[in-house]
């Protein structure tokens, strides 16, 4: 192989290796992690699942917010739904807002889920998962974030709030959010 040709081939190989390395670095630096307790809750505007229009999380600033990520295909979400609705009915009088974020779900099935379980708090749809996995680092539903009046995260529950280990924690978190 002649020298210029050899040099071109070497440069191309080097370029390919550098390209792959850049992709790896990009992937590692762009991995999303769940926001930490004490950090500001990532903002979002998502279309409402039931009804029209959208819901902006920023519009709820000043109120404690319970942000629940769920999907109609998720088994534990079914058992959690009733408890969440009861919690909503109990805490709404104290000014706590509840928002359900439907994740990677068929809209028709999600609406049926809301209707079957009699959920009355606002629901938004995140079909692409950009907010749920992209900003909140959620990969498995259900997960719940409790956000204080200042917009800072008070607690993150990775699992159903109905599980014995989380039930007390959820109540405490809402109490902290109300005081915040």
């Amino acid at each position, binding site marked *: *192989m002649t020298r210029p040709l050899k040099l071109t081939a070497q440069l191309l190989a080097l370029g390919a290796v550098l390209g792959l390395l850049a992709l790896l670095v990009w992937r590692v630096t762009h991995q999303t992690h769940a926001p930490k307790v004490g950090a500001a809750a990532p903002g979002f505007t998502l279309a409402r699942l039931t009804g029209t229009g959208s819901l902006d999380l920023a519009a709820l600033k000043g109120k404690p917010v319970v942000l629940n990520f769920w*999907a109609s*295909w998720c088994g534990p979400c079914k058992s959690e739904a009733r408890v969440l609705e009861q919690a909503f009915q109990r805490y709404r009088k104290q000014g706590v807002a509840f928002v359900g974020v439907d994740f990677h779900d068929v809209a028709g099935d999600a609406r049926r889920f809301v209707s079957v379980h009699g959920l009355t708090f606002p629901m938004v749809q995140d079909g692409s998962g950009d907010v749920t996995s992209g900003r909140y680092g959620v990969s498995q539903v259900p997960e719940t974030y409790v956000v204080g009046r200042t917009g800072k995260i008070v607690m993150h529950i990775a699992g159903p709030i109905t599980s014995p280990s989380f039930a007390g924690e959820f109540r405490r978190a809402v109490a902290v959010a109300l005081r915040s």
Partner: protein
Amino acid sequence: MIVRVLAVAAAALALAGPAAACAHPKTSLSYLEGQIMCPTCHTTLDQSDAAAAQQIKREIAKRIGQCWSTKQIEDELVGNFGQGILAAPPHKGFDLLAWWLPLGSVIGGAGLLALGVWRWSRTRESDAQEPAELDPETERQVDEALARLD
């Protein structure tokens, strides 16, 4: 009696389900399972048994039963889940790179290889055709030896 007959007819219709609604489906579940991604496991539907994948398969089957075309079903899924639900990137904009870059790389690589082989074979040919040159001292010695033979 009439009520019973009507009830049986209604049940039969319900059980016949979507298949009866569309005599000539425009696409198939097995085809679309290879074209649509499972949003939670990042594989195509045909490689996934995840709950989310099962739900989308049911939705696709329902739409096929309603005589929807591949494009209609894909459009609905993209509207619901975003562009990432499609296994293949669209043939437009920046996503075109995903189609043309591998092809360009293969063609470019093959071209470089062909050029290399061609240059190498030419070098070998010229090496074989050109007689080896002798340095002046050796040439003088050969001439002397030939002269002695004469």
